[in-house]
């Protein structure tokens, strides 16, 4: 179900029209950009689309893709390791399906970030840099969005109920940054049953997919809404109006968001979890030609603890949470995503990257769990020219530090953009990722 009704922006005091206006002011203006905003179409690289699987919170690298079975008990944790399809490569025993596909992707085990704070590290992880006097650098997806024009679908979609953040608020790097809200992602939330909610379009009570087919009704509703907003002299509304209308009245565009178009078997294979169905939606959006899709396991997905557990932030009960929920859900959904993309021939032109903002402390903390660790973590890369079956980089015997050249977030972003056809010259023109390098070992 595509649910665009029931406006749900909430404050501590409930819903309000002011809340709506605030939401409207933050709406994405990225697709259907005016010529003045767009820098023009480019020839796409091997990656027509990038699908970033963002594991927000800091997934434990030792308990997933960089286990240390020979380390002392206080480091290695309670999970055994299993062999993968790649000789000599071992993963956690809780990732058997992903392990069986290891010859279809490459693994990077030498990431570092420059902060152990979620909001800062997350912003760096998604932009490659830190805030400066010129503002915050744009998200990798915003950069792709600036170079791609789409008539009906937004070029940068983030599957979440709102900006990624923690209890203090959203991270600054979730969207356009210094480029403005015009380059923020188009947010879409996917429930465990696959119902879709588009926060930006929850404008009119009672508006639903059925009513969208009644163009007169829709126009009347939108006109009324525009009239109300015009009264506030709210400038971006025209853009919102055109964008929302473009999406809502294009059956092809709406179709991209409808998981009911998928067979039951396909939907089952991803698992009926919010993350699983989000992965399936991510595949559909890539299939529809959206150039940058960010699938999030965030504070809105599979949350078991309040005020914590922002996705993978397992300060408490790391091992039980990973064993009971996180890793089996990830293993099912992510392995299905890779297989599905491959079976449909989409992996040739889709770059898949699975990563978080940092790892977790190799040494188990005093309460039997793991804390933040930006000094070393892992990622998975597949498709669009990435040579599969490789392990890039290596961490030390306890997984505390890379013993090979560290891979920074700027390198992650630069490599993603290079594969999507945004060259070093274009990056320089855009003044993004000045210090990034392409991770050629992957290619």
């Amino acid at each position, binding site marked *: 179900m595509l649910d665009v009704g029931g406006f749900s922006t909430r404050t501590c005091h409930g819903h309000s029209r002011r809340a709506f206006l605030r939401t409207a002011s933050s709406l994405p203006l990225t697709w259907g950009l005016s010529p003045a905003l767009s820098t023009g179409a480019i020839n796409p690289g091997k990656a027509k689309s990038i699908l970033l699987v963002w594991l927000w919170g800091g997934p434990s690298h030792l308990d997933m893709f960089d286990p240390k079975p020979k380390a002392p008990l206080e480091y*290695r944790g309670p999970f055994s390791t299993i062999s993968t399809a790649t000789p000599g490569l071992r993963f956690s025993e809780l990732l*058997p399906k992903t392990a069986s596909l290891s010859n279809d992707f490459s693994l990077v085990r030498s990431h570092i970030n420059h902060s152990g704070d979620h909001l800062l590290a997350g912003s760096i992880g998604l932009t490659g840099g830190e805030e400066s006097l010129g503002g915050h650098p744009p998200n990798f997806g915003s950069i792709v969005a600036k170079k791609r024009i789409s008539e009906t679908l937004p070029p940068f979609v983030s599957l979440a109920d709102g900006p990624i953040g923690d209890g203090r608020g959203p991270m600054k790097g979730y969207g356009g940054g210094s480029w403005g809200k015009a380059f923020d992602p188009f947010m879409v939330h996917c429930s465990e049953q696959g119902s879709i909610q588009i926060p930006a379009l929850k404008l009119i009570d009672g508006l639903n997919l059925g009513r969208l087919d009644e163009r007169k009704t829709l126009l009347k509703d939108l006109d009324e809404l525009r009239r109300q907003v015009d009264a506030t002299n709210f400038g971006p509304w025209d853009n919102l109006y055109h964008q929302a209308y473009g999406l809502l009245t294009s059956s092809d565009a709406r179709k991209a968001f409808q998981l009911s178009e998928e067979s039951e078997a396909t939907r089952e294979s991803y698992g009926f979890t919010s993350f699983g169905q989000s992965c399936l939606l991510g595949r559909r959006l890539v299939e529809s030609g959206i150039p940058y899709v960010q699938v999030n396991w965030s504070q809105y997905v599979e949350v*078991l*603890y*309040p005020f914590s557990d922002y996705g993978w932030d397992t300060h408490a009960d790391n091992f039980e949470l990973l064993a009971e929920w996180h890793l089996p859900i990830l293993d099912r959904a992510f392995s299905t995503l890779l297989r599905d993309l491959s079976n449909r021939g989409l992996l040739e032109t889709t770059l898949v990257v699975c990563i978080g903002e940092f790892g977790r402390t190799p040494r188990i903390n*005093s309460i039997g769990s793991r804390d933040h660790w930006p000094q070393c973590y892992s990622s998975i890369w597949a498709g669009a020219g990435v040579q599969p079956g490789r392990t890039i980089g290596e961490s030390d015997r306890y997984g505390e530090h890379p013993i090979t050249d560290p891979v920074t977030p700027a390198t992650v972003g630069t490599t993603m953009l290079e594969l999507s056809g945004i060259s070093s010259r274009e990056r320089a023109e855009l003044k993004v990722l000045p210090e990034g390098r392409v991770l050629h070992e992957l290619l």
Partner: protein
Amino acid sequence: MFLYNDSRTKPTFPIAGLLMLILVNPALTSPPKQLTFDGKKKLSPIFTHSGKHLVFSTHSLPNRVTLEQLVLATGKRTRLLPNETAHQWDVTFSNDGRYWCYARSASSPQLQLVIRDTHENTEAIFATPEPRGTVRHPTFSPDNTHIVFGLSGPGGHQIASVNLQGQKLRKLTAAPGINTGPEYSFDGDKLVFTSSRTGNFEIYSMLADGNKLQMITNNPAMDLHPSWSPDGKWIAFTTLRDGNYEVYLMNEQGTNLVNVTNHHERDQFSAWHPNGQHLVTVSERKGRFDLYLHDLHSLTNMDALRNVDK
């Protein structure tokens, strides 16, 4: 091969294969009964002592884990604490029906132990001094004098106990690794629990005072979430030894192993019915999580088990 049979799906497979499977695994003679149908994530089910209700944690609300009660006779489900806004995990009940307790989230990652006295209508709370510490998997002693649980706090992740007022904390283990998930034997003399003290998760038993430790399983794959049958003859537990989560039975010596669930999708969080002849599991089927009731009449026949083990 598709081994599972539920009330809504009638799979077909060759007769020869069926006969072979029946010989190998008597569980197939009585397919499990699906008890819930919403498919939402669930964990830690437990029967009430009458055996008429199941209580479990479920992710049925967006971003909240709540306790629900299922009436077995009718299938009716109700939230146990409809006004509670915190997450609620791992409920359990005292033998005399007077007390029940569960783990409740606090304003930090902390999970506190909440003990409710239904006679006095009072609530006692035990919280670890560590702001990120947790209490998981509580269980009442059969004599209804204290509660044993897995405690993560200063000193690591240990088995500990408090009295029914949430006081007089006593740690029963002081071992490395993760020690959690205790369950009493029917007579209260022993505890069975999960520990990673030697490397990976295995099942152990000890006397209720923490002495006479005995390692029950020893497998490269994880074994966890043990629960003792009401007659003390069997221990149900979850294991990854077949490559995915299955629920097995074994005796206290760790032998006579039987795979109860035997399915390519996840099965975990087993709990015994008070009659000792049924086991409930949280099982993932076709990507959905529901409660399934397994009839163990044939499985708990010792001769049959010996044959399987051979």
